[in-house]
């Protein structure tokens, strides 16, 4: 085994194992955190750190081929859509009136009224 092959193996091992570790940490956070707003943070760990590290590890293992290009395309897509979907879920929950259960510094957020959905707001502004 030449030095370059050893380097590739070690690098992809490191990336894939750390990505798997981040995914497990995020999954445990989703299960164990007390309410919805703290579970959002755990999902963010999975969506950014876990996905990027695992896909980089797989791309290093694949070498400079079409497979690596496909992996990079999947990575860019997940890197854009993951935070977008998380933001959409958080916005829908906030508009529907869900509020954090606990927290001393969050009084202004907990007491905030639910904002109107965009369609209603535009209709009101148009009138």
């Amino acid at each position: 085994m030449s030095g370059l092959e050893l380097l590739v193996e070690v690098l992809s091992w490191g990336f894939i194992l750390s990505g798997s570790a981040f995914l497990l940490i995020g999954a445990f956070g989703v299960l164990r955190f007390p309410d919805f707003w703290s579970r959002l943070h755990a999902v963010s760990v999975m969506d950014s750190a876990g996905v990027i590290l695992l896909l980089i590890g797989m791309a290093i293992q694949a070498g400079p081929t079409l497979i690596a290009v496909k992996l990079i395309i999947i990575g860019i897509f997940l890197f854009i859509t993951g935070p977008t979907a998380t933001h959409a879920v958080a916005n829908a929950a906030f508009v529907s009136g869900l509020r954090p259960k606990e927290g001393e510094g969050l009084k202004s957020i907990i007491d905030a009224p639910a904002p109107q959905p965009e369609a209603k707001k535009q209709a009101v502004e148009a009138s």
Partner: protein
Amino acid sequence: MFAVAAIALLIAMVIVLIRVFRGETLYDRVLAVNAFGTITVLFIGVLGFLMERPDFLDIAMLYALINFVGTIAILKFFRYRAIGDIPRKDPEEEAAG
């Protein structure tokens, strides 16, 4: 190496599924289903490497697209109670109600 990653992804999928079935609110379930889809995309990719058929990556790409659109569609349905065009009421009636 890929077997270790596949086992870790399977454990993460099971844990997230527990949250899907236990979730207190609708948004917990939607969030967990979205995370489950992300893990599934990665699992399909790892499975392709494990079985030495990397053509599976096309399926993973397709699954990523469907997962995102599905999450947005579920959220839109539960906010407006309609998936197609949103029924607009009259502005006066809307402002009064």
